[in-house]
């Protein structure tokens, strides 16, 4: 138990540091993530560029810092959106029951059966072309959030269904509690552990989905960095050989995903 607590503390500390690294990107590097030092492509680390440069001569440290900001701020936002949608629909289905429940679950199954990547590609292609890179990245994560709700749906629905026939809820109804009071004081506190768990689990999943999209060249647009498009630099093995620091986005991604898993409280601890 002590080991677990220690692991969680260390993981949380690492996550805080990585979040701060992203948030304070503008303050900790003098370089813009977009400036190309064309005389120094794939340069090794030096006092001027502490992690070296990428294939176009852009400072890797600056790109990593700004990329961390993009990936780590928007992934929780997408996780929040998907948990919110999944939570609302799941609890509605679980509590109301009947044809409404069947319709919502069918919609969830349908959504789960859709190949997410292709749906994202199609929706991405429908976006206007003249939006800025910042807006496009927000749109990408919003799409991830809007399409990722089905994973939370079934879990929340199962928890809500158990609540529907619970004694305390029937007692609350019998004593004349209003619907709003029932939701606020009885349902939401009981669903909180499930929703929190879903939220925390979704964050690393969205970070990885964005990385996959960017690896395909369909995520965050140039010149804005994200962990995903920084990972694309690893396609060039020769550059990795000359500068092992170009692996830093991969190390950071793995570290953050592991830390999220370790820092995640057990479900019963949310209650």
């Amino acid at each position: 138990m002590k080991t677990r607590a220690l692991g969680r503390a260390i993981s949380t500390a690492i996550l805080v540091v990585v979040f701060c690294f992203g948030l304070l990107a503008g303050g900790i590097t003098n370089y813009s993530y977009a400036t190309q030092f064309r005389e120094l492509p794939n340069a090794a680390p030096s006092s001027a560029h502490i992690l070296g440069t990428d294939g176009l001569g852009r400072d890797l440290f600056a790109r990593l810092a700004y990329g961390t900001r993009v990936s780590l701020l928007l992934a929780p936002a997408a996780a929040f959106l998907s948990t919110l949608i999944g939570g609302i629909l799941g609890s509605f289905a679980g509590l109301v029951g009947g044809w409404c429940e069947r319709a919502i679950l069918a919609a969830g199954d349908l959504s789960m059966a859709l190949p997410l990547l292709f749906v994202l590609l199609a929706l991405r292609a429908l976006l206007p072309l003249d939006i800025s890179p910042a807006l496009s990245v927000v749109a990408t994560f919003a799409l991830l959030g809007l399409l990722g709700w089905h994973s939370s749906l079934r879990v929340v629905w199962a928890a809500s269904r158990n609540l529907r026939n619970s004694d305390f809820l029937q007692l609350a109804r019998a004593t004349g509690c209003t619907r709003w009071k029932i939701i606020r004081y009885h349902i939401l506190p009981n669903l909180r552990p499930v929703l929190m768990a879903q939220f925390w689990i979704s964050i690393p999943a969205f970070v990885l989905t964005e990385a996959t999209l960017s690896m395909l060249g369909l995520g965050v647009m140039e010149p804005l960095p994200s962990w995903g498009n920084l990972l694309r630099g690893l396609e060039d093995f020769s550059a990795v050989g000359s500068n092992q620091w170009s692996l830093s986005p991969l190390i950071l991604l793995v570290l953050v995903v592991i830390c999220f898993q370790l820092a995640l409280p057990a479900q019963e601890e949310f209650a």
Partner: protein
Amino acid sequence: MTSRPFRILAVLFLFLAPGGRAQSGGELHFCLHGEPKTFNPLLVDDEASENIRYLTGGVLIRLNRQTQALEPGLATSWTISHERRTITFRLRKGLFFSDGTPFTSEDVAYTMRLLLDPQTHSPTGDAFRASEGKAQIETPAKDVAVITFAAPVAGLERLFDQVAILSAHSPKKEMAVLGPFYVSDYKPGSYVQLRKNPNYWKHDAQGRALPYLDSVQLDIQRNRDIELVRFRRGELQLINRLDADQFERLQRESPALAKSAGTGLYAEEFWFNQAPSSPLPEYKKTWFRTTEFRKAISLAINRDDICRIVYRGFAKPAYGPVSPSNKFWFNSALEEPKHDTQRALRMLARVGFRYEKETLKDRAGNRVEFTLVTNSGNTAREKMAAMIQQDLAQIGIKLNIVTLDFPSLIERMTRTLDYDACLLGLVNTDLDPNSQMTVWLSSGENHQWNPNQKTPATPWEAEIDKQMREQASAPTEKQRKAKFDRVQQIVSEQQPFIYLINKDVLVAVSSSVSGAVPVVLNPPAFWNVETIHLKAGVELEAQK
């Protein structure tokens, strides 16, 4: 006086000396980058099938990939009528297909009838069927074939380089071939095995039957990194095409194995959407239709940096539609304007653009900002786009980059026309400009900047239409060249396409292979497969 045993030893030494005579036999091993869709040479439409057609097909006229001159193949000679409608072939006598069926003019007639039949849907036949009307094919003798087309066909004799002759009588149909090899085995998804054609007609200068190799094994391998790993292990002896990163890596490890054939025909370019029916705002349409705007953009792009950084120096700046490696058709008189930001700004100022506070605005005060689309997954193009983005920022232009999956990109380019500018590559494997007719004619569907025009939108497009049509029917190659030079001149002046680079053709050849001389035309590494041979004792050894 030399003693007899010494003389025998000397003769033996000469025979065994490396580089003395070509060694017959052995199996050459390399990769196809996709599944061949067909073994029927008339239906070839993909690179893998094209490579197999090249290795197995016998053609009447062969384009020498090194000299870019036409050479006799199955035809010993040919004559073309003055109006370029009729071609008469005199064929080699006493030739046989790989299965032993004799070769006569009937086979040429059979092949041409199939090729020209619209029901065959032959991509190779499309070039011959450019005009309306039916072709007449006559065989006055077993060694003479006369083909008369309904209208003049530009570059007629060159087209026969792609026409592999089929047997009219062989029970093996298209599997009976006249080329150096025949398909002996095929395992889908795994390999294609070719064996030496025992009836191949060619011999070397010493009278030895060609090809030297006994067989060729073509492994089907889409992943180019795995291909390179296998080459380095010695499991493959050729790589027909390498990208700049792979080439640089191989060059660092084994410089002797990485070979550059020089600047290729392949160009990367971008263009602005000038279609009047596009849903773009009017002010953007006005920018894109202004010649000075396009020329200024071209001047602001640092092509040397793109070649050096994106292609690691294995590319050359491009300024026109024809690569310098296309020896006959390249117009060497074209201007090659160097990167010059100040000149670009002056040019823009002349047509009413203002550069203020590091921002470029048009006469009406609109900020110059547009989006460049390209296909996703192409790292080189994405890097090029990022470099263009920084170059254009120097003249106050804000460039957004959007990568789209290919179907979405094609949809925008051809149907909705909802894009500002597009960056793509032009695959041009044919030397003759006639193959680009649909690109240059204003009515063409591949006239990307403003496709399918009913009448030419601008005087210079009308002039290009006129020159392209005239070159197609000009009686001599010299006259055709003069007309296409003019087209290149207009394109250079108007910049409907802003050409960026011509990539080098990069290949890998194992030290166990002798006689491979890479060229820029397809197939670059094995175009002379007949005379390629393996050095004795070093087959399939790991590369040093």
